[in-house]
């Protein structure tokens, strides 16, 4: 349940380290974003000497949330942090590596590149 003003970790090596959500892409006045939703965010902290800089507005897709993700077979997955992967307008990740575990739902939502880069798909 990510909403504007939420800080998210960055789960790739694009250069940003922390993002703050500004807006959720989808319907207007959409309140919360879950795993697999695209958000507009601003970079609050960045690694120096990378193409991305602080206070830059970019898009990202949420890959981990502290709020549970429910599956159809009755299982529930809950991560320990909120994390996102920086993407461009088409949906391709800007970085070349992805860190941490990624849920399987991203593959069905056409983020196959992110799912294939992940070290562990849950």
């Amino acid at each position, binding site marked *: 349940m990510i909403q504007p003003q939420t800080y998210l970790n960055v789960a790739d090596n694009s250069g940003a380290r922390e993002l703050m959500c500004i807006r959720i892409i989808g319907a207007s006045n959409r309140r919360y974003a879950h795993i697999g939703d695209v958000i507009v965010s601003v970079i609050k902290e960045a690694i120096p000497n990378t193409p991305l800089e602080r206070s830059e507005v970019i898009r990202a897709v949420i890959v*981990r949330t502290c709020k549970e993700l429910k599956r159809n077979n009755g*299982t529930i*997955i*809950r*991560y320990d942090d909120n994390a996102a992967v920086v993407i461009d307008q088409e949906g391709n990740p800007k970085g070349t590596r992805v860190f941490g*575990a990624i849920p399987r739902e991203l593959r069905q939502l056409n983020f196959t590149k992110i799912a294939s880069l992940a070290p*562990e798909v849950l």
Partner: protein
Amino acid sequence: MQSIRGSTRLLQRHRFSISNTLRFTSSSTSCGSWSENESRRLGFDSFPCTRAATYLISSLKNVGFSSSAIPKQNFTYSSRCFSTTGDSVQGSPESDCVVPQRIKFKRLDKTAKHIMQIVDKEAVEEVRTLREIPEIKPGYIVQLKVEVPENKRRVSIVKGVVIARRNAGLNSTFRIRRLVAGVGVESMFPLYSPNLREIKVVDKKKVRRAKLYYLRDKVNALKKH
């Protein structure tokens, strides 16, 4: 149901008047006509002659008969009028209508709950005979083989600490906490899910809680507990 409740309330209200009126009438009237007189006096005419109501009337009469002999035990007898144990009142019912053996039956919503319990137990028994499901308590370190239907492979050996267990019949679930690629992940599985191919208890840790949610704040390696 309402008539029973109403009649018992009437009985309680007329408890005192019973002792007074019956002393006068018991000597003069016989068995059959007494019941009609008394029923009319107490207004039992309005109630339908249900099985329970006739039982109450007969026990009420027994109150009347015994009250003349032992006036002090009036109140205990009348308070036993609406007990559910059959034939707790002394004396055979010498009533006009035949009183069959009182059958206990639950309210409909209680019966429905009971049926659901039975159905649930049967379903659990069925699953238990199919697969061997060991006992899982919080604090155990458990290794699962979870089948993922979309991949069609026997993926994911899941190994972690059981931090919670919820008992709800067939819907019993348990939560496992583990470290995956540097990120803590909690998964909840239904205990009787057909996707859980195998559950193996690897280790048991001593814990003093049923739910180990405090582990979320502890940063050290989760499996070490």
